[in-house]
């Protein structure tokens, strides 16, 4: 069996911490730590959309902004959007859209902002996990949460939740987001060079990992509601 640098088993997640309600000013928020990767998400809305001509008559517009804090990586990240972050905003948005009842808020907008405070691979999946809890924390009506994790293949073995060291070794990097209860995939990207059979197995491994993350997300929300109730 593959020995991972951090001592994990191939199908083991990194230590994961999820907290809901971390930003008092936001309508909903969450902090997600997966190993050394830290994402914080804040939701503002639903609220009236401006400028008016961008409003949709039959649903809310979901806006997702993903950004890396300058000191989140070894080499300082220059502030401002990059081609990479523009693509990530799009795939993250499209990973979340399927679970939100956007049609309940015609002409409105819902803003989800996600900052990566520390990056050690898997920032888009941590972002999705945080955004999904923040949306629930904001009381936005949803079919289910979305849970996400990246998987890969190292030395012929399928491994869950890659670190950035492992990203240099893997035959592929496959981030996946799912709607856990329905087992539907809402984000799927792949970089690498692997067989279709590998991909099939990896997606299933990711789904398994997502189920664990899903439990952590729900526990975080439960803690938040109990805390709130206690106030």
């Amino acid at each position, binding site marked *: 069996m593959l020995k991972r640098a951090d001592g994990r088993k191939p199908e083991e997640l990194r230590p994961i911490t999820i907290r809901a309600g971390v930003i008092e000013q936001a309508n909903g928020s969450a902090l997600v730590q997966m190993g050394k990767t830290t994402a914080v998400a804040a939701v503002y809305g639903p609220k009236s959309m401006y400028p008016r001509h961008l409003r949709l008559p039959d649903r809310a517009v979901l806006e997702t902004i993903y950004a890396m804090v300058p000191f989140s990586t070894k080499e300082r990240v220059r502030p401002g959007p990059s*081609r990479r972050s523009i693509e990530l905003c799009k795939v993250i948005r499209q990973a979340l859209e399927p679970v939100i009842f956007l049609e309940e808020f015609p002409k409105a907008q819902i803003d989800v902002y996600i900052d990566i405070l520390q990056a050690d691979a898997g920032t888009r999946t941590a972002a999705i996990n945080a955004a999904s809890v923040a949306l629930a924390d904001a009381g936005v009506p949803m079919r289910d949460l979305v849970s996400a994790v990246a998987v890969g293949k190292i030395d012929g073995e399928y491994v869950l939740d890659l670190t950035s060291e492992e990203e240099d070794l893997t035959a592929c990097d496959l981030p996946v987001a799912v709607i856990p209860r329905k087992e539907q995939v809402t984000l799927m990207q*792949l*970089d*690498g060079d692997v067989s279709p059979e590998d991909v099939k197995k990896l997606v*299933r491994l990711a789904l398994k990992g997502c189920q664990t993350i899903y439990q952590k997300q729900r526990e975080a929300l439960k803690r938040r509601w109990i805390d709130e109730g206690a106030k």
Partner: protein
Amino acid sequence: MRVQNEYVLKLIEKGERIDGRALDEYRLVQVEKGVIQNAEGSARVKIGNTEVLAGVKLAVEQPFPDKPEEGLLIVNAEFSPIASPLFETGPPSEEAIELARVVDRGIRESKAIQMEKLCIEPGEKAWAVFIDIHIINHAGNLLDASALAALAALLDARFPGWDGQKVDYTVRGDKLPIQHKPIAVSFTKVGNTFLLDPNLEEESVMEGKLIITSKEDGNICAIQKTGPLVLRLEEIDDLLGKAGKYAEKLRRMV
């Protein structure tokens, strides 16, 4: 529009399409190489009325610090406003950036170009390969057309001259070291049906796409789910199984 949309949807439910094609049938695909004289390599791809131009330019630059013995690959796409009333002037849209990055990943991850053969002087000088994708007419399925055009332009490309000081673009030297032919196939979901090569009417009613780029050996080098689509595991399995077959058909065109 709405009436038209419902008609398109109903047809597809029955396994039919407004232009009479089978669900897994491409429109007429035409590939023409060497269409731009000032480019080191170029290709025009038409899929039905969709028309895409790809050009390869080479320049000598400093390698990236983390890959001192490799060349550089830069893929850029412009959705020129000549091509569609949907396109606007200004910096590349989210869609154009996503398209360029998916094409880039297919080429990069498949190791289509032998990047280490582009190195001139380790850490100091290497060939930078710029692939620019320019849309001429947008009649649906831009991604498959763009990825195909990019590959065809790479296969057409030849090194310019290099005397150690500057590039001589009047010289047309050796071919680029291309060792693989990654091909992107977009599976487009309309209702509960997956189809290939959507036209504009079909794209206007689609849920989204699963784009799968594969190599000659059937291996997969890039995947992108795009649009607010959801996918069941069996659907993914099914599409993964089919991608290589359709890719092979397109590969024969370049």
